[in-house]
């Protein structure tokens, strides 16, 4: 409860001191939390922090459609902050015009999201809690471990339920492309469900490979409960392993896959008589 009060206090202060022109957060009039831009300190009493809500894309639209001197504060969680940073890195958002009021998530929330990093860079609100390792979590295990063939069947079963609502894309804080490749017949056959599964989901997943901040927005938005976020885990891990890179943590650092091996080397697998190959062809 106290967190909410802290939040309100901070936001009030920022608005009273005119440091910000507006603060984006959840406003709960008659028990319906909706996103809202608080512009006067009086309004702030209706500010709430639950449920988890991703503001990044919203913030982007607000900043874009508001006058050039409008400075927006955002009450957001770790994942959301990282999303904002990724948007800034992609020139979708001007960092000078936003101010993050960071909130650390509760342990429960972290577990619900399988979040490895349930806190922003500077948690103004709440206490940092340990992140969870998705690979430890039971349901996740079922999707990430076991024999290749089992994983294949597991995922086929899940993805075959896709109703192509585009919710995973729409709710993703980083997907901003218009037009989107997923709507293009060339990549994903239109007008059929389940969506042209391999293409739709893998292309979506891969486009976010070095951008995904593991906010879990896609999973939450899936009507048929496909744990889409799990598609990203392995790729995020490999980025972390190869380059100690995690999306959204360092505004100054571009994705390592965009640079050459001089700048950011990665392990190159060498097979005798078969130089510079990236995979073992056979154990024999």
């Amino acid at each position, binding site marked *: 409860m106290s967190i909410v009060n802290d939040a309100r206090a901070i936001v009030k202060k920022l608005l009273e001191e005119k440091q910000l*022109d*507006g603060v*984006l957060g959840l406003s709960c009039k*008659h*028990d*319906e*939390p*909706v*996103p*809202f*831009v608080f*512009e006067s300190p009086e309004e702030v009493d209706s500010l709430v922090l639950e*449920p988890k*809500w991703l503001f990044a894309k*919203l913030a982007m*639209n*607000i900043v874009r*459609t*508001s*006058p050039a001197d*409008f400075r927006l504060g955002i009450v957001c969680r770790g994942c959301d902050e990282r999303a904002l940073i990724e948007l800034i890195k992609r020139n979708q958002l001007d960092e000078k015009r936003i101010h993050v009021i960071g909130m650390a998530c509760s342990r429960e929330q972290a577990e619900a999201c399988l979040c490895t990093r349930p806190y922003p860079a500077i948690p103004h609100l709440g206490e940092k809690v340990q992140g969870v390792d998705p690979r430890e979590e039971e349901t996740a295990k079922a999707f990430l471990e076991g024999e290749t063939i089992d994983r294949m069947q597991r995922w086929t*079963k899940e993805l*075959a*339920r896709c*109703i*192509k*609502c*585009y*919710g995973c894309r*729409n*709710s993703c804080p980083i997907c901003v492309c218009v037009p989107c490749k997923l*709507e293009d017949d060339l990549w994903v056959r*239109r*007008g059929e*469900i*389940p969506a042209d599964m391999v293409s739709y989901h893998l292309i979506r997943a891969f486009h976010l490979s070095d951008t995904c901040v593991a906010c879990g927005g896609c999973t*939450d*938005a*899936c*009507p*048929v*409960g496909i744990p889409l976020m799990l598609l990203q885990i392995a790729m995020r891990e490999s980025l972390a392993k190869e380059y100690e890179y995690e999306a959204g943590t360092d505004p100054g650092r571009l994705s390592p896959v965009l640079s050459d091996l001089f700048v950011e080397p990665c392990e190159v697998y060498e097979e005798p008589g078969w130089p510079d190959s990236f995979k073992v062809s056979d154990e024999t």
Partner: protein
Amino acid sequence: MKLEFVKTICPYCGTGCGLLLQVRDSRVVTTLPDKKHPVAKGTLCIKGWAAHEFIHHPDRLTQPMLKKGDIFQPIPWDEAIGLAATKFKETAEKYGPDAVAGLSSAKCTNEDNYLFQKLIRAGFMTNNVDHCARLCHGPTAAAMSQALGSGAMTNSITDFVGADCIMMFGSNAAETHPIIMGEIYKGKDQGATLIVVDPRRTEVARNADIHLQIRPGSDIPLIGGMMRHILDNKLEAKEFIKERTEDFAELKNFLKEWSVRKASEECGISPDQLRQVAQIYARAGEAMIVFCMGITQHACGTANVFAICNLAMLCGHVGSAHSGICPLRGQNNVQGACDVGALPNVYPGYQSVADLVMKDKFERAWGRPLSDKPGMTVTEIISSSGTGIRALYIMAENPLLSDPNQNHVIESLPKLDFLVVQDIFLTETARFADLVLPGSCFAEKTGTFTNTERRIQLLHKVVDPPGDAKDDFTILCMLGRALGLDYDYTDPAQVMDEMAEVTPIMAGVHFNRLGSAGLQWPCPADDHPGTRFLHAGKFTRGKGLFVVPGYTPPKEMPDKDYPFTLITGRMFSHYHTGTMTRRSSFLNREVDKAFVEINPDDADAHGIQDGDKVRLSTRRGSISTTARITPRMNRGAIFAPFHFSEAPANALTIEELDPISKIPEFKACAASLVKE
């Protein structure tokens, strides 16, 4: 920079998901899911995500228009209303009250529908009011209210989680009710066996544990066979039958003729599979039946529903938390429209017009003499246009595309002396109107929708109607007053209160109680929390009634001229007559042209390749469309969605009506397919 989010309800299917519409300088710019919504829980389907796209479409009607010669000319509101009122009055005086009829709308709020049916009933002393429920769940209402006492979905959407067996008849929920499908999958993951009965191998079917790909229209044999097997193996719920039902003997009697073998031959399913399914359903601790258009849209639709009720009662799978019968309603407010009496045979709350006590009650409530003669149904109204019916008032319906045998409709409508169409776009139907009134869409009105699980939910006004358009509530009030009714409401809430007074099942429903989660009727008192599932302990009608379902196979069987069975229906990115979805760029991009699905082997046999232009014909008419070759169709069956006005599937459908509920047989007619 003002950012505004308004919570409201999705205008598409009967699931009634919560939406947040983002408004920027009085335009709706985006849709977000409502994370707190009891059903959707922060998810949406493709249509929901695009719900805002048609709101500000340039095609929106912005002012009343009168047809002079062949062209529409704008006229001021007072003139329009005055004209409508006088015309209707004249007609009623000249040809008697039953010459006037009204088609209400499952797209409009409960309040609108209530006012509409009251306007027709009290204004002209006729019961000629109906709406498109006739074309989807007419039989459901008829049969279920006769057998159980209530035509509504017995349980709640969330109740699928916890059932041991979920049996889906003729429902492609994955495309038509995606969010409900999500719940069903959840149920499946929690251990329910999912059995799907569908002549198409839909996505649902593919993801089911068992798929019975029966012949179109052979549901009764299937269910008959199942029931027979259940009886033969003493799997029926004897206690339940004894305590809570009547006329069981007659069912037994009827089942004599349905040996499993005969049944399996009729529906083209192996006897073993049929037995297996029967066992699974009967043995399940709690079992749900989901059914949809595949059951109802047949000439024996009502019988089909009876059969389903029988099956459920036979096994005692009704009236508890996770077992019941779930007709999935198609339109966002089709449930509500029925509840508030936009039906020719009942007053609000399913109170029969033939019942003089009720008539008396409503005459007192409305202060006008009423008719005790049940009115005409949609299909009857259309077909008797110009003969029985002289003046017709259509609110937000598009019979031209939604009703069977389009050509017939096209012939009938011009025969009317006077046709008023109130809609948001100039629909195919509206083009035939003498007077067009610009109405409002879901985002422009306050009121309530009732979703398929009887949940009455509040929607809030987000933006003003475009131009001179007014919200339907206001229009109806104006018209009502012009007809001398006491229509001086200022706020839909008052209408809801009035409804509460006259309809017991909604007696406790008031705007201020609805909040974000809404209320599920029956809600008889102001302190009643609403009802999650019906028939607990005792059926609404007292004892459950076994009604013998008379089986009639589809009227038109394939022959050598018309070798295919044509099934019509919906697909995921479009909605009904496409008035809204075809105007949403995103949805229309997903599927922008009509198609007909055909089995690869059939295609081969007819030398048709994927994407070919083909001519699809029946005895009624023929359309040009594109072939989509997919193994999801059985041999001999083809499927065409009816969203596309350029290739209207209902130019083909047969006008064969179900004797009781008067629903047309959309789901089966003989067709031929040739490459163009």
